[in-house]
């Protein structure tokens, strides 16, 4: 384990940016989101949760796939280049790191998504332990340890220092590249880090959603959950916007569309939302027709279909962004609790 004084972080970012692309939480017009580092960027490591997760760094909200150009009678197809530059995503949290695991199972299984795979190959994740978890956090429910992010490098802020521990080969390589700014640690430092981890764990136990039970949510309850009359009640306040899906670290659905600009057509993909009326509206024209069905889909996907296909892993990391941002104050926690209460009454 190494350490660096927090006041030297700007120097660290500058050094990383010499050899890597660098994305980190940046405050712009009052909101903190992951963005490319620059000398004048307002880096914000104090905000626990960026509005959007760090998903964009690996699976951007919009990206071009290829462009078809017409010149005279000739047509040419120019595929978008895959990511070739190594980059670092600094300041992710344990929940967002789990989010990448969820995305990996989708995009890295056959047929591999080459755009995503290239970014995963070239990306190094430096994650921070969650100094002060918030009431909307429930990562522990999904087995995520907010004090020990499973990233390439795990960082632990404690006092005036940031402690740095490489956990993978990529992490070791990054550590080598910035070693000139890192200091060795001693026993006392180890004690500080453990104290910080303990403090995080203690606080997590006090959070209101800590005892949320996932009992009854697995791949075997498909029909029972799907046919429940509860959905008719639960969906009603839903505005059918895409906020929950766009701030989510695991929502992975996308649409592919064409943008026509005179003599060229650009084929792009962008995040889609199962909350939208045209979601999965393909040639067959037979997509989900009611908001209840769309609403149900989101939670069935996260808590039933995904675990059924992925050895029981849920497609929710408990980051709580949907809890914070839903305009109608709906969220996955309320859905889980509603089914739990119903079970109790039976």
């Amino acid at each position, binding site marked *: 384990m190494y350490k660096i004084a927090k006041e030297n972080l700007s120097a660290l970012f500058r050094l990383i940016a010499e050899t890597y692309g660098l994305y980190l939480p940046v405050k712009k017009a009052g909101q903190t989101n992951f963005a490319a580092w620059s000398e004048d960027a307002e880096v914000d490591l104090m905000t626990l949760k960026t509005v959007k997760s760090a998903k964009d760094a690996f699976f951007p909200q919009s990206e071009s796939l290829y462009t078809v150009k017409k010149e005279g009678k000739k047509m040419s197809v120019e595929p978008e280049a895959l990511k070739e530059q190594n980059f670092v995503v600094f300041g992710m949290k344990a929940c967002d790191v789990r989010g990448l695991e969820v995305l990996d199972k989708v995009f890295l299984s056959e047929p591999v998504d080459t755009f995503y795979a290239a970014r995963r190959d070239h990306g190094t994740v430096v994650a921070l332990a969650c100094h002060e978890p918030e*009431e909307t956090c429930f990562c522990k429910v999904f087995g995520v340890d907010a004090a020990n992010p499973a990233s390439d490098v795990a960082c632990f802020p404690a006092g005036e220092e940031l402690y740095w521990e490489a956990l993978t080969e990529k992490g070791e390589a990054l550590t080598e590249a910035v070693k000139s700014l890192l200091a060795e640690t001693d026993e006392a430092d180890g004690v500080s880090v453990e104290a910080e981890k303990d403090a995080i764990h203690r606080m997590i136990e006090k*959070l209101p959603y800590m005892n949320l039970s996932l009992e009854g949510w697995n791949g075997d309850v498909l029909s029972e959950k799907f046919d429940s009359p509860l959905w008719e009640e639960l969906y009603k306040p839903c505005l059918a*916007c895409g906020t929950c899906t766009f701030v989510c670290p695991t929502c992975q659905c996308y649409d592919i569309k064409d*943008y026509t600009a005179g003599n060229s057509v650009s084929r792009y993909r962008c995040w889609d939302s199962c909350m939208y009326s045209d979601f999965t509206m393909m040639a067959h024209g037979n997509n989900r027709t009611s908001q209840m069905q769309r609403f149900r889909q989101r939670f069935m996907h996260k808590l039933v279909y995904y675990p059924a296909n992925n050895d029981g892993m849920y497609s929710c990391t408990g980051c709580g962004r949907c809890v914070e941002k839903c*305009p109608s104050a709906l969220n996955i926690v309320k859905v889980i609790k509603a089914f739990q209460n119903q079970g109790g009454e039976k």
Partner: protein
Amino acid sequence: MQELINRAKELLADGTVARVLGWKAGDLPYNPEPAYFETAEALEDFVYNGFCGANLSKYMIEASKMEGKTMVCLKPCDTYSFMQLIKEHRVDREKAYIAGVGCKGKLDIEKIRARGIRGIESIEGAELTDDAETLKIQTIYGEKSLAYADGMLERCHVCKGKEHVIFDEQIGESKETKDAERFGEVERIESLSPEEKFSYFQSELGKCIRCNACRNVCPACSCRKCVFDSNKFDSSQKANVDSFEEKMFHIIRAFHVAGRCTDCGECSRVCPQGIPLHLFNRKFIKDIDELYGEYQAGADIDSKAPLTDYTFEDAEPSIVGKRG
């Protein structure tokens, strides 16, 4: 709140209404959700406090199609939206029993979070009956406090007043919360140079994630199918690319609701990225006031809207050039 619940129970019991549209207690101190209640028993979860900011008018479009009347709880500012929806024939007045509920300003959890208050366990002072000027917030990191006014939604600082413009009965007291000029921020932006204005809107709209929350919550956005949901044209309307939404989506939307927007502020309340979207609408309202005379959408049923009416005194298109 108890008075409201009792009244709701009476109206359900005597068959005046088939359901009540209000707010259901959340699982955190600040997240009640809009909800329908059909029985006295269900009303046990009913809540009405400082966090019930959601404007329920738009839900009445769907509720108007349901069997029987709906008792809908509308705050003074919400009634303007409802009136406007009547005017646009989008809700059925006969299907609504309007409980004009009192309001002392609604709270914005984002404003509270912006003060660095995290780990919230309980919030005192958010009840309507509370005269407290201060919110006492218990967090897992200790007790915090905040002046009620500092936690209020932007729209409450420019409150339209305590009057319900339409109601069947009024329940609860309201309080004047206006402490800022409605057009203050618009005037500040007007005074900027074109470059500064462009950069301001670029930086604000650059945050847009095209979640459509602003559109979906907007009572004036009541088209059955929005043009932006069409999959028939090859534009980038679904992607959050700079070239499109920064310049088009929000501006088109603002034009579409101009003269109909009551300035209810829901667009800004729900924006996950904190974009002050209401400023577009408010600029249009200010322009309409200046060019056609003062007009408040949703204030009445009969008046002709300035942009859909024609008089000889109307401003000519060339006014754009003259005003700069």
